[in-house]
């Protein structure tokens, strides 16, 4: 059926061109627009409006203590203040450090566990399920439990290590500014390694077994097979995991806030808790919006890479 049949009246021989007739291609586009319009409106309402509002706040000095109507347009002052603040550099470095060490430790443990649990052995199903427990526990509950474990005065970890003779005196896992980072990374590792392990295991399961058999016939060692077969074929999964986890760990809030509130002092403060503190504790909403906008822009880079990569794979 020709495209324009639906838009004409009368018979083809006698009809006059309608004022409302659209060429077929345009009509298709219009239909498409009408179909996606409800979705677009929802996106505009639920994402677009808050986003635009937050962006507009980043250029204002809204400070709740001075009232809801205290906001005036201040241009880039919030951004200037952020870059001029001496605490900015350590907070940004803390965030980078937290992301890098969290990702590396989680990758190594997740990969090791995935390789281990990929093998056939008795009780493998139970082990695979058990390894997921940290991931399914609510973050807040898990972190509060970790607070008790890591307390320097009555924590279970010190008690156990001293009891076993590993330590002579207690370590202030959360109170010592030289140690607090390792505590945060350990808790982050415990909480998030299952996500890596599950995805890497799924990646391992689709690698054809024949590749390993051929390599074995050619005399390749297990290590070489891992290096030249497993890792290259897992690369797409690893890259996606690194991208997603970079975004998620950069926005990490609950673990850090519940364990240390960014302390002692600002020793373990990262960007996401800092935004929360500025906004909901100090009520400097405009300033917090500016910082969160910068964080969003940084994360946008990783998001774009992730989307492009996903599109390439498809």
């Amino acid at each position, binding site marked *: 059926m020709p495209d324009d049949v639906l838009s004409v009246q009368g018979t083809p021989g006698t009809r006059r061109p309608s004022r409302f007739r659209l060429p077929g291609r345009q009509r298709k586009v219009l239909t498409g627009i009408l179909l996606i319009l409800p979705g677009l409106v929802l996106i505009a309402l639920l994402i*677009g409006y808050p*986003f635009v509002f937050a962006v507009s706040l980043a250029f204002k000095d809204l400070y709740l203590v001075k009232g809801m109507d205290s906001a005036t347009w201040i241009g880039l002052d919030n951004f200037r203040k952020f870059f001029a603040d001496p605490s900015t550099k350590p907070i940004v470095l803390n965030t980078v450090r937290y992301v890098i060490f969290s990702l590396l430790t989680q990758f190594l443990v997740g990969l090791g566990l995935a390789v281990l649990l990929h093998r056939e052995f008795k009780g493998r199903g139970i082990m695979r399920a058990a390894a997921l427990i940290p991931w399914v526990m609510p973050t807040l509950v898990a972190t509060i439990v970790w607070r008790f474990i890591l307390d320097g005065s*009555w924590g279970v970890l010190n008690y156990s290590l001293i009891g076993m003779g590993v330590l002579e005196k207690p370590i202030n896992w959360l109170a010592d500014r030289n140690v607090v980072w390792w505590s945060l990374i350990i808790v982050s590792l415990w909480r998030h390694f299952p996500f890596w392990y599950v995805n890497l295991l799924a990646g391992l399961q689709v690698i054809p077994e024949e590749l390993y058999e051929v390599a074995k016939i050619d005399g390749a060692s297990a290590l070489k097979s891992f290096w030249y077969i497993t890792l290259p074929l897992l690369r797409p999964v690893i890259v996606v995991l690194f991208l997603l986890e970079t975004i998620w760990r950069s926005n990490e809030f609950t673990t850090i806030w519940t364990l240390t509130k960014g302390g002692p002092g600002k020793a373990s403060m990262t960007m996401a808790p800092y935004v929360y503190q500025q906004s909901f504790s100090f*009520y400097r909403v405009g300033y917090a919006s500016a910082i969160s906008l910068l964080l969003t822009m940084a994360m946008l880079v990783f998001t774009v890479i992730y989307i492009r990569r996903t599109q390439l794979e498809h």
Partner: protein
Amino acid sequence: MHKRVSILLLLVMVIPVLLSACGGAAPTVAPQPAATSAPETTAPEATKAPPAQPVKVIYLSAGTAEVEQDWNEKWVKAFNDSHPNIQIQYELVAWADLLTKVSAMIAGGNPPDIAWYAPSMIKEWYYGGLLEPLDDWLPQDIEELLPAIRDPSASDIIYDGKYYGMPFCLAGLGVIARKDIFAEAGYDTDDLMNWDWAKYKEIMAAVTKPDKNQYGLQFAFGEPRISGGKYWFLTNGLRDVTDFSNKEAYVEALQYSMDLFPYSPEAQLQWVHADTLTCYMNGVCSVAFQGSYFQGDIIRQAPEVMSNEGSAVLPYPIGPRMDDCMVPWYTVGWVMFQASRNKPEAAEVLHFLASREAVNEWPMNMAPKTEITLEDRVRASEFGEEVRWWLEDWYEMMEICKPAARPGYAPSNEINQIYTEVLLELYYGSITAEEAYEQLKAGIEPIVIAPGQ
């Protein structure tokens, strides 16, 4: 095609902008009522016909403890049952979220009518222009309140000569000491009502035994709201941490904090409120800087510690610039918001909740109204006779020592954070007390909106 996509994207961007232009405006606030048109809150039903739909009064409570919730629910129900034309919509909000929640509700066009206040919060709300003065709405209640509250001229509820709060709770602050640990070190808590800084330091040194994981005190650096050491400003003749009027007194207070650091556990650097309770309960800390609400926090877990035999209530040790002991006090109560759309009804709710019957049943702490006696408080407490010794000690201490109002300061969270970070540098020994004074002055003075009055 690209053009159409561009138009579509433009549409997606324009809609939010239009919406943001429509929303987010400051709410319209009704004019304040004149004194002559103030509602007669004592007999409102007799003067006007009940509306078809009951008026909804939004009440935000920060009373998250079980006994607080029970009390609130009981009196909200009593009000709703007896006032068919007004219904209270009761909502529970944690203290930490209260200002944000109120601001969000006002911005969203659904302002709350009344809420709980604490000293710093009422100050922040007042300076934010969010509060409605109660003088015109509840003249009778205010008149009754005046002689009852302690030293109203220095109270946390009066600003520019007007009353903005209706208190239901009076809390005192002091030192709670473990009698067993003090006795072991050779000190009787009965002899310490007039102790000074030197005596206190001597005792803290005597009870500190790191090998036994036993210390004198803790500063709780992990939660700036409660970080210790702020008391030393009060006990050295200063108003609070924002009072830079006397540099010598301020530096002395900071130096005294430094002198006490060796008698506190290192793990305190990340301790929050719950840890301070644990520390006292398990005997790692010999004292707790606490308020008259403290007993209820730990009596369930450690009844033997929180007993007349286990603990003593003492005033803060006095500094070199004080002659006599003093007990800081503050109130907790209700405020009405300027954005409230139902002020007459909200006033009626406040009048009801602030009645002697309701306030008398408040299950914790002391009462701001002096007509409510110790016996009343014992009867109201969920712990019954177990609370008697505790309240007796507090009432006695407030008789012996000078009551000192603690009106709070704003913005409290930010100031507390600055103070805690500087105190931490003192703890690490990276700055001196003098340098700490300069840093605090430079950090706090530019942001303080309302120095304590």
